[in-house]
């Protein structure tokens, strides 16, 4: 199955391991992620000012370029791995589906491209993997991560807001999609009450104290439930939680990795995990199958 992929800036700059493992894991499952040609930055945060469309234009341009390739694909979807990209593209697309005036405004402004027709859907990689089937994933596992205690951290962008309908990829207050996925690769999900809380977002730039306050609570909670590792779907959450780890004493720290890196490890493709993190993860597994 071929499906269009929106990598976003972070996967191309700071976190290539997220892109590489997303692509490799999907390939292993028979899904080819095809990068949208000429995609642009999504803007990271969906603008909440309803009287201006300017801040949505980056996302619209990417959706226009995606649409040009859509006939070559096996589903009319744009897949994002980064939570923030998912949220912005999803919301912009839903807004243009629902608001004809805004669609007209956007189309008359972007005069160097064909008009956007919102007949595609934006999905997160987790949803795509659920569509492939967690049982199917389970059947492809070569190294089950047995006994590894994984805290699935969702953050905000996969789950909120609730309206317009379709934004949350799962129950916004009590999601389980990532835990179900972790179970399919043999890991043991641990529930923790801070899994849908905010990491502090962009405050890391000018108010790192806010991010440290949030990260300490989130990591401390995961640790108290016995987590060996925290999995994230968001480059900014991952960065912020790692900043929190730095502020914590060593015995409380919990390594944070992209969910696709654990999938890669279980499916037998390169996980791009740092050596010390990989060692710690493998120590968490009760049954270690020797092989990379």
């Amino acid at each position, binding site marked *: 199955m071929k499906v269009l992929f929106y990598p976003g800036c972070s996967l191309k700059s700071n976190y290539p391991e997220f892109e590489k493992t997303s692509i490799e894991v999907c390939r292993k499952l028979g899904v080819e992620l095809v990068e949208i040609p000429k995609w642009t930055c999504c803007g990271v945060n969906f603008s909440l000012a309803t009287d201006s469309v300017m801040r949505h234009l980056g996302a619209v341009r990417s959706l226009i370029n995606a649409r040009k390739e859509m006939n070559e694909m096996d589903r009319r979807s744009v897949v994002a791995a980064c939570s923030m990209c998912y949220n912005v593209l999803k919301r912009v697309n839903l807004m243009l589906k629902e608001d004809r005036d805004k669609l007209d405004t956007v189309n008359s402004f972007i005069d160097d491209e064909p008009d956007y027709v919102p007949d595609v859907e934006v999905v997160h990689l987790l949803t795509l993997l659920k569509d492939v089937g967690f049982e199917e994933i389970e059947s492809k596992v070569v190294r089950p991560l047995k006994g590894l205690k994984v805290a699935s951290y969702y953050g905000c962008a996969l789950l909120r807001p609730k309206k317009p309908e379709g934004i949350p990829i799962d129950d916004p207050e009590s999601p389980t999609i990532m835990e179900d996925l972790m179970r399919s690769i043999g890991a043991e999900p641990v529930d923790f009450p801070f899994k849908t809380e905010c990491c*502090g977002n962009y405050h890391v*730039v000018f108010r790192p104290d806010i991010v440290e306050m949030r990260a300490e609570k989130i990591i401390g909670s995961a640790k108290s439930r016995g987590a060996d590792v925290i999995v994230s779907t968001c480059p900014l959450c991952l960065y912020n939680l790692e900043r929190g780890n730095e502020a914590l004493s060593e015995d409380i720290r919990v390594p944070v990795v992209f969910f696709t890196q654990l999938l890669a490890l279980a499916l037998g493709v390169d996980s791009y995990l740092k050596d010390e993190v990989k060692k710690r993860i493998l120590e968490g597994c009760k049954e270690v199958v020797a092989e990379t």
Partner: protein
Amino acid sequence: MNELAKRVIEISGQNVYACYQCGCCSAGCMFTEKMDILPNQAIALIQRGDESVLEKETPWICASCFVCTVRCPRGLDVAAIMEALREIKIRRRDFVKVDLRKIKEIERLPQIAITAVAQKFTW
């Protein structure tokens, strides 16, 4: 309707008069310990046309996590109201909340964080 409320409604699309001050937004907010007034208090000031709300830190501390929005029993997008308060200030072109040239350790920060803060805090 006062001018401030009118402007907030224009930008956010939210009827600030629907708020009945139950405080659910503030109870769920995970940033209140860093704020100078609570989110529901900010809405009360808007309802009264009290422009001192524009000088508070609260709208700038809000990180748009949408917990308040999801839980508001009146269906208000509280995060959008906070964004409107920021926008009113940002759209005054001489206003500078943050100076992007003064970011510390910029080479250490991921691009996503810098773009996000620029998107939220600058025109």
